[in-house]
């Protein structure tokens, strides 16, 4: 039957939407994580006083794009360096004794809310007194920003296409239904049926198509998602530091209501609008 076909296609639309949504949210989470791990480092002029460093810290604190900043003393820097380069070979490092070779490397590590604001922040930091150098990864920052907006455009595009397809489908179903029940509708009108009474079954049909057409694919996606994430984490454990999948609950916490509202909303609007067009009751 026609409504079965449109239910199936509706399911396919919502399934694609959900699939896309799951991928995008995971990507975004991974990008976010990459972003938040990327710091801008501020190095100071030689012979700077602690007061000046504190003053710079105050300036950094005022910036809205900064989520967190951290003072790294020369001692901390040296410890980290030792850890990275000498590893367990503590004696080699001990050769430097009290003479910290990184005595001049006090810095602020700044983490940002929004990586796209990086150039602005860097300009600002470079303009501050007592700042010798601002180290940052320009390419990484820009790539992530570009990537983020690309994902945004693609999602909007795909969602729009899916919406159009779904509305078209419902509209087609309702149009066919109206044609099939033309006599019945004519009789109803002559007996004195209200517009509401004539429309109700079509709207109910549209909403049902939307409801079933979203519940089924959402359930399917839920199981698939868990299976796939489990499979990938299991078989490709070496990727686990790169690919940090969101737990199913987290993705579906948003996806389920959005999918249901989309399905039911499309079903309702699609049928309502079509009836208005075809039934000047």
């Amino acid at each position, binding site marked *: 039957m026609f409504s079965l076909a449109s239910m199936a296609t509706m399911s396919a639309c919502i399934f694609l939407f959900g699939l896309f949504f799951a991928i995008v949210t995971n990507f975004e989470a991974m990008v976010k994580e990459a972003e938040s791990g990327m710091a801008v480092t501020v190095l100071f002029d030689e012979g700077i006083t602690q007061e000046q460093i504190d003053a710079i810290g105050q300036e950094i604190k005022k910036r809205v794009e900064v989520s967190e900043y951290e003072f790294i003393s020369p001692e901390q820097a040296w410890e980290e360096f030792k850890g990275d380069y000498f590893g367990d070979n503590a004696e080699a490092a001990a050769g430097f004794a009290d003479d910290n070779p990184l005595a001049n490397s006090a810095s602020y590590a700044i983490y940002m809310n929004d990586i796209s604001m990086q150039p602005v922040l860097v300009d600002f930091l470079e303009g501050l007194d007592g700042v010798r150098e601002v180290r940052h990864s320009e390419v990484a920052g820009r790539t992530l920003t570009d990537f983020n907006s690309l994902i945004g455009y693609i999602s909007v595009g795909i969602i729009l296409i899916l919406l159009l397809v779904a509305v078209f489908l419902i509209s087609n179903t309702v149009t066919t239904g109206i044609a099939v029940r033309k006599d019945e509708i004519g009789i109803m009108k002559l007996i004195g049926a209200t*517009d509401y009474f004539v429309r109700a079954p079509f709207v109910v049909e549209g909403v049902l198509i939307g409801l079933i057409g979203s519940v089924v694919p959402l359930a399917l996606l839920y199981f698939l998602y868990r299976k796939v994430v489990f499979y990938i984490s299991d078989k490709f454990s070496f990727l686990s530091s790169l690919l940090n999948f969101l737990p199913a609950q987290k993705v579906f916490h948003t996806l389920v209501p959005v999918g249901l509202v989309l399905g039911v909303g499309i079903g309702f609007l699609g049928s309502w609008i079509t009836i208005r067009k075809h039934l000047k009751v």
Partner: protein
Amino acid sequence: MIKLENVSKAYSAGVPALNDVNLEIADGEFVFIVGDSGSGKSTLIKLLLKELEPTEGTIIVDGRRLGAIRHKQIPKFRRNLGVVFQDFRLLKDRNVYDNVAFAQRVIGASVRESKRKVPVMLSMVGLAAKYKSYPRQLSGGEQQRVAIARALVNQPKILLADEPTGNLDANNAWEIMKLLEEINERGTTVVVVTHNMDIVKIMNKRVITMKKGVVISDVDGDFNED
């Protein structure tokens, strides 16, 4: 009461299907409308149902000026009218009982109410025994009775019938007309469009004759074709 004042209807500019019709039908009357094919009889019925709007003139049905009825109020207005057509217009996928009950459902009657009224209507039209039959299992006359039961179950004040016997043989036509007369005797105003001159002559009712959209004669009883 039904009243038409200077009513004209043109489907396309210049060719009127009705031309300056003046007419009055009192409550409780039984009226035949006769006339050649294309003389405007069905158009008149459609105007009374507010299925069509007149190009000119005023129509009053049951005290209501149709031009003043807004779209939203049309359903409520139509519940005062029962309609019967030549082609019965039953729902083919529903049995006799459900066809009649459908009219009750449309106006929002409770199931209890319709369970009480539908059997009464079906026995009045003589189809109580066939309440489970489907339209295709019934003769034309029986189908038309179902249509009449459906038209009357909501207790309209006026029954409009557009060639109700057009598809029936002489016997069935007679039975339907007798039924309509009986309904009229119970107080319903009945307007019947027909081509069946034998019946019109014998029944001795008011007869309105139309020709090319104009009422050419309106006689009460004693009808003779000229």
